[in-house]
């Protein structure tokens, strides 16, 4: 019985692969704004301009390196392309109080939400942080990237520019 279920499962995954994947809308989950109000993730929008969704945590060093690196040029990015970055913190009660202090001290100008019990993280199938998504002007997820190394922010921005020009994105 178990074997049968598993083979069915595998079969489903592979048969779906042909038309699943990129190009879907942001799934629905409830996240919290820093002012405590609740927002559904399927309402994220940026007036037809691209959105970067970045999953991070206050205890995640590479996440903060990535957001710091983007922050250095974020003003230019928004000016040139109109892109907006939405930072989703997966901190739980232990450290969610630190989200606002980190964001303010670092002077990040991002739109920040807290995904306290990781409902949005699960809906977006994020294994571990940092994980970054690129959403096009129609609200469709078109690109994603797991982990952060030096220089990833440049690749991300190249893709934002390509997205606007309608060119093919690269990993």
């Amino acid at each position, binding site marked *: 019985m178990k074997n049968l*279920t598993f083979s069915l499962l595998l079969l489903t995954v592979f048969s779906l692969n042909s038309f699943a994947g990129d190009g879907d809308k942001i799934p629905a989950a409830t996240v919290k704004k820093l002012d405590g109000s609740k927002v559904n993730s399927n309402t994220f929008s940026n007036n037809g301009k691209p959105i970067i969704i970045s999953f991070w945590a206050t205890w995640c060093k590479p996440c903060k390196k990535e957001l710091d690196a983007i922050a250095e040029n974020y003003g230019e990015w928004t000016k040139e392309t109109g892109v907006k970055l939405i930072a989703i913190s997966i901190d739980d009660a232990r450290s969610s109080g630190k989200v606002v202090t980190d964001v303010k001290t670092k002077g990040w100008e991002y739109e920040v939400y807290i995904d306290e019990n990781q409902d949005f993280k699960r809906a977006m199938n994020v294994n571990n942080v940092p994980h970054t998504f690129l959403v096009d002007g129609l609200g469709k997820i078109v690109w994603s990237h797991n982990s952060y190394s030096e220089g990833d922010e440049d690749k991300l921005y190249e893709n934002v520019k390509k997205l606007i020009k309608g060119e093919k994105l690269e990993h």
Partner: protein
Amino acid sequence: MTLSRFFKSSVTAAFLFLISLKPFKGFTQNVSDEINSIHGNFQIDAQYYNADSLIGAPKVPEKMLSNAFGNINYQKGKFSAGMRYEAYNNVMQGFDARYKGQGITNRYARYQDKLLDITIGNIYEQFGGGLILRTYYEPGLLYDNSLDGIRVISNPYKGITLKGLVGKQRSFFTVGQGIVRGVDGEVNINEILDSLAKNIKTKVIVGGSFVSKFQIDEDPHFNLPQNVGAYGGRLNVIRDGFNFFGEYVYKENDPSVANASSVEGKNYYSYRHGEAAFMSMSLAAKGISFMIQGKRVDNMSFRSDRDATLQNLLINYLPATTRQHTYLMPAYSPYATQPKGEVGGMAEMQYKFAKGTLLGGKYGMDITLNASMANGLKVIGVNDSSSYSTLYTTNYSDVGEQYYHDYFIEINRKFSKKIKGTLMYANQFYNKNIVQYGSPNAGYKNIVSNIIVVDLTYKYKPGSAIRFETQWLGRDNKDTLNLGSWASELIEWTPTSNIFVAVLDQYNYGNPVESLKLHYFLVSAGYTSGPHRISFSYGKQRAGIFCVGGVCRNVPASNGLAVSITSSF
């Protein structure tokens, strides 16, 4: 076929049927713009083990062990469903051996609209900060206490959220004995008042919960409560950079293995009530912030099975009020909340020296000062003539034995376009008997450590970098029950941003035994392409405690080749 297996397979069949209905994209785009998607993720970890008696790595009869899982989530408009398959052949070293074999461990179906949100199947939920109820999943630690049952969430009026749930908790490949039931209500005062409150900058959110568990009493000696209730309230006040969150939970008497104490070789359950309080307050402005956290926990292990231990069948979450470190040496001896009793707190200040100032230099400099500590409760024994239980009281004004402290300073600075670095110093106190063995009589000495971390990144051209990390952990080198001092060196090379190669050497130079002054070499490499990542490592890993998201597990020493693949689609 057992009932549960029938249920599982029928839910699976229904799920497969539903996704087979998913129309091709070309059609949907013409019809509507609603969400219609299938996504998922995979993770596979495997390790080949060599026995190594010097570092204490045991012989593994299977030679190779692996953990794997895959999630699939389907969403169409307001409907969503998903499942997870897990496989342990056999489970890797350091995890509970009851994770054995494979099967579907999670499946759910959910309907959400503006008024109602109904889920059946495995549910992840959190009431408030989680002091009373949190079901949560962390694959890295194999922590999953999901509630298999029904949940209803409703927003009857703007600003009001009501939740109700009932079910049994996941326990390895089955569910625990006890039934968990809970209700929670939360009111965002500003949203209710709407137009009136639009101009009020101070936001106030209040909430309250009631959670109860039922487990039959079959104990021949004790009269155990079959129903145990817990209730709590919380308050959140926010104004610009000011944030206050406070939560209090009271639990009725709940005798269990987790709160039992051993007197002269016999286990005595405690019939005392439990309580927990947690608060966090922060004040932040651009470039500067302060935060304080405090917590008091008394007999607050809350599980849906009174015989459960370790991480199993926990209903609630007791966050540690200490900093979770990511560097190896400061994270060597991490702290975890002691549910039997603890008073703890943390204070942190962060400051950013602005660009162009003397200390800030051209790019600015971040500095963090943090102090945290945790003590036991001052317990006052009460004579108990029945001798069936242990009784005690506590007072709020006094604290007991010290469990932990961590004082650290961390400085982050960018020196030029190419070079940036982190410098950290920490002083830690670790009561090994309590934190690691849960008993004051485990026979270890308290450990005091001094730690230095230097982390330098040199970005030699766009997308290419070399990172050096030097760490030192100074401890008592004469304490034969511990391993003494360590030094660790890391070189990590990222020739392009999607490839890394790293060499790590952890050197136990202070081991009290001369022949055990060993180097633990570990070579690792990885490749990332978008949402896919594969990494390898070969070498020795020391025994230690590994923590993610506030949950910790002991990892034994190992020597061998490990591979990890993660992917999402």
